[in-house]
């Protein structure tokens, strides 16, 4: 059944699953997973180059027409994140950035103060900013007000696979959002990707759940279907929850 495209900053995407490239065991497996996910946008990190190093992941993405979305992973301050975003823009000739400013290695939770500061600076510098944020409706609103093109709240901490810890917060973010909401981080399996979409998210971004699964291409397929199932369920409108049973067959005369 047809669905509207995902629109971020005026750009249309047929796929509502954004697959990160981190954690894949090999380039071949990553390629199969990306294709199975049918993703059109994928995150990449910006790192120091070694002598003679090739840009393998970029060649792979270019071959399949998948748009790279540079991130600022590993940045701890607004200043670091802004410079990394500018380097990503220079390297990839894109003004889009997945903005990550994390507070510490143990939780990898966003540092809200540095995040908002970096978002404001990057919006002023002409970037299309997609911030990885806490599942805090107030912070999400502040980021959207600052001019971010989407907000990307976490379901649970990066790489934990704990799913969506606070579904009500995600629903509150969705209900207020003037920009697309992308559930980013914490997804462990396909039912959780479906739940994100049922809660009203516009898209799901995940990496670890696919790249570290026993069979990454198959999990990528599962995530693609999960996102589609959740999206259809959201659009179809679920029945209200009832306390007592309600017969679905007609009563006998």
């Amino acid at each position, binding site marked *: 059944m047809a669905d509207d495209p995902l629109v971020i900053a005026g750009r249309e995407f047929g796929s509502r699953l954004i697959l990160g490239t981190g954690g894949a065991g090999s380039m071949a497996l990553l390629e199969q997973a990306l294709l199975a996910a049918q993703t059109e946008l994928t995150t*990449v990190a910006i790192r120091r180059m070694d002598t003679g190093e090739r840009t393998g992941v970029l060649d792979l993405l270019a071959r399949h027409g998948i748009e790279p979305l540079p991130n600022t992973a590993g940045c701890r301050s607004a200043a670091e994140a802004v410079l990394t975003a500018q380097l990503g823009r220079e390297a990839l000739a894109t003004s889009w950035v997945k903005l990550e400013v994390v507070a510490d290695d143990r939780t990898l939770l966003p540092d809200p103060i540095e995040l908002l500061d970096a978002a404001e600076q990057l919006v002023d510098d002409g970037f299309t900013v997609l911030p990885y944020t806490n599942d805090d409706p107030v912070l999400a609103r502040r980021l959207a007000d600052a001019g971010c093109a989407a907000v990307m709240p976490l379901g649970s901490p990066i790489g934990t696979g704990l799913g969506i810890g606070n579904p009500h917060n995600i629903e509150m973010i969705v209900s207020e959002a003037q920009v697309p909401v992308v559930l980013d981080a914490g997804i462990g399996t396909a039912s959780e990707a479906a739940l994100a979409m049922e809660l009203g998210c516009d898209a799901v971004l995940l990496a670890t759940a696919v790249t570290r699964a026993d069979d990454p291409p198959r999990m990528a397929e599962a995530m693609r279907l999960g996102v589609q199932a959740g999206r259809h369920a959201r659009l179809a409108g679920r029945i209200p929850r009832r306390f007592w049973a309600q017969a679905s067959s007609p009563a006998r005369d």
Partner: protein
Amino acid sequence: MNVLVNGEQWVLPAGSTVADVLERLAVPSTGVAVAMDGAVVPRASWLRTPLRPGALIEVLTAVQGG
């Protein structure tokens, strides 16, 4: 002159430019970004941007992540 390239000490002839660093690193020219002393050096300026003695140079690209 001494410069620090991706955390390593390099000795380069006086007058070397950002482009010379990239040539010595033998990396592709696309998909790459350069920062000197914490500021981006745009691709169009690589050939005519001299290195400052003691400069901190970062050469970066996109890798799997996130």
